[in-house]
């Protein structure tokens, strides 16, 4: 069986990572940013999974990563709900009062 050179998985992981970075940096909507964060994390997961050959450690750590991601998304959404209540906006540019200005 011919297999695809795993190097392509790495490139794909890099693509995911970069795309996620782009989304985080440039999108205004908070939920959009969360999507971007997901992309980043998934790119990292793919990377770990690609490099695990001959043992199962890659899988295990990827599972851990997913679980932590879930926690983080839950908390982020809770915070988002709070912010939304306060500002009635989900636009990042207008959420400024967290800083001391």
């Amino acid at each position, binding site marked *: 069986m011919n297999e695809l050179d795993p190097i392509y998985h790495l490139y794909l992981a890099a693509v995911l990572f970069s795309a996620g970075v782009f989304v*985080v940096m440039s999108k205004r909507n908070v939920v959009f940013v969360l999507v971007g964060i997901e992309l980043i994390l998934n790119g990292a997961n793919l990377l770990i999974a690609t490099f695990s050959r001959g043992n199962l450690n890659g899988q295990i750590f990827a599972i851990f990563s997913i679980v932590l991601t879930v926690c983080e998304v839950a908390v982020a959404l809770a915070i988002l709900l709070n912010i939304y209540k306060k500002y009635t906006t989900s636009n990042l540019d207008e959420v400024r009062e967290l800083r001391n200005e």
Partner: protein
Amino acid sequence: MSMEALISLIVLLPLLGLGSTYALNHSGWRVSAAFIAGSFFCSVYLLFQLDSPYMVRWEWLPNLQVGISADKPAAILLALVGLLSLLVHLFSMEYMKDDTAKQRYFAKLAFFTFSMMGLLVSDSLILLFVFWELVGFSSYLLIGFWFKKDSAPGSARMAFMVNKVADVALLAGILMLLREGDSTFVSELGETLFFLPSLLIAIGAFGKSAQLPFSGWIVKAMAGPTPISALIHAATMVAAGVYLLFRIGPFLDSQVLAIVTITGIATAMYGALSAITQNDIKKVLAYSTISQLGYMVMGIGVSAGEASIFHLWTHAFFKAGLFLGAGVVIHTLHQRENSDPQDMRQMGGIRSKLPWTFVSFLVCSLALAGIPFFSGFMSKEGILLAAWTWAEQIGTWAYLVPDLALVTILITAFYVGRLVILVFLGESRYGTSVDAIKFDENAYFKIPLTVLAIGSIWFVYNINPLAHTSILDSFFGLVSIDSDSFIAQSGVGISIFLSIAGAVLAFSLFKPKSAFSLGYRDNVLPNSFGGRVIYNGFYLINAYRLIGTTIHSTAQGVTWVEKRIDGLLHFLAMSVVVLAKVLAIVDRLIIDGIVNFLAWIARVLGNVTSLVHARESQWQIIWLLIAFVLILSWILFF
């Protein structure tokens, strides 16, 4: 009485006279004349009392001693001054009768008498200088007596200033003597002085005695009252220079003596030539005075000081007599209006109107001309013989001096004759209506004229009319000059011949009814070059004016330069201030600017780098990732 008291009286009585003119309003001036008379009698008394020179000294300043001394020459001259002052006082009482400023006149006259007498008895050169200046000052006061007249103030100033220039030299000479430690006492002079002090003192004497180049002031001084001219500028003040030279003479440097001789004879020629064509009676007499003074100074130069003093004495008498006679004429003709009373073209034929004046005038002018049987001849012979002796000793070129002296005698006789003829003889040119002028000869006029005329005749001095010695010789210290040499004897004869020839020449030219005399009334000034030169006195006064204006314009030029320099300095100061302000601005702008610029850079950099702490949270993430990429690329590629 004691010598001190006597001398004090002689010198100080005139001062009392001065005080009395102001103290007693009405006739104070008469009282002043009495004081002068007193001073004169005291001086005569002194003559008989004097056996040996009397000296007294006192300390004027610390380290400065001054003194007076009365020896025979001083005593005889004191008597002369006293006599002349008294005669002039008498004359002035009538002459100035109608003048409103009589008090001032007599006060100044007394002041002058005091100064002159003080000068004569001074022993210390410094004290002599003090009285010298006082005499000059009183001359200034008297010349400018009628100060409202146009010419008087300027003439007084010129007299004073010309004298002052010479006085500077005199003072310099005296101070030189002081510095070198030589004695400044005349009686203590023993050895020959050095060249420079001698020269300076001689120049100082030239100024007072109107030698060249200081001659101009006497001519201008004729603007003063005529009796003043008689006293001061004929007899006494101008003699002060001769007196000083007489005292210093034996001790002068030989080169200076030669200079003195040459100056003297040159002045004599100058005065005589200039007197020929003058039309003003007083100017003729002024130039005559210059000429005779030159004669005296020449006598000093040939080491015949005693003969010069004798001539001084006789000159005082006949010149004063001439001046006073002219004063009578002027005083009379003053009654005319709108014409110059001193102009000889308006005179003539006065002999019949003023006989007494004519006689005394004639006697005095014969004495001036040097005709035998008169005093002038005797004193001139003394000087002439001394000149011949001196020339014999020196050599060839020195014979020029006696030769010129003879020529002077000729010219002197010539102009004297012209003077007498044109004033007194001939047709009367003095006015259209003769009756309007009152010719009056007052006793006040007659007495002085008589005394002076008598003093000009030979028998007063010596029985022998042709002698050159006199009874006064002992007073002058005159030693008989050896007059046996052939040249000397013939010189005497030649001089007699020349004087008579000059008089005859004048008579033939100017006699009554001659062509010249007839046309003299309308005579205009000489046309020929030589005539114009001597008429204007060789333009000496113009030369004075030129010097004065040159100095004035130089001073103005210097002032102008000073102003420019002041302006320049002002400009420099201003530009320094401006520069300072500019520098201040530059300092403020540049130096502060640099500091401000640095601060501005820091602020800008700070503002720029604080962008890292972005407002928006996404930018923070961006900066984070930028840093991440940079570190990553650093690790990868370096």
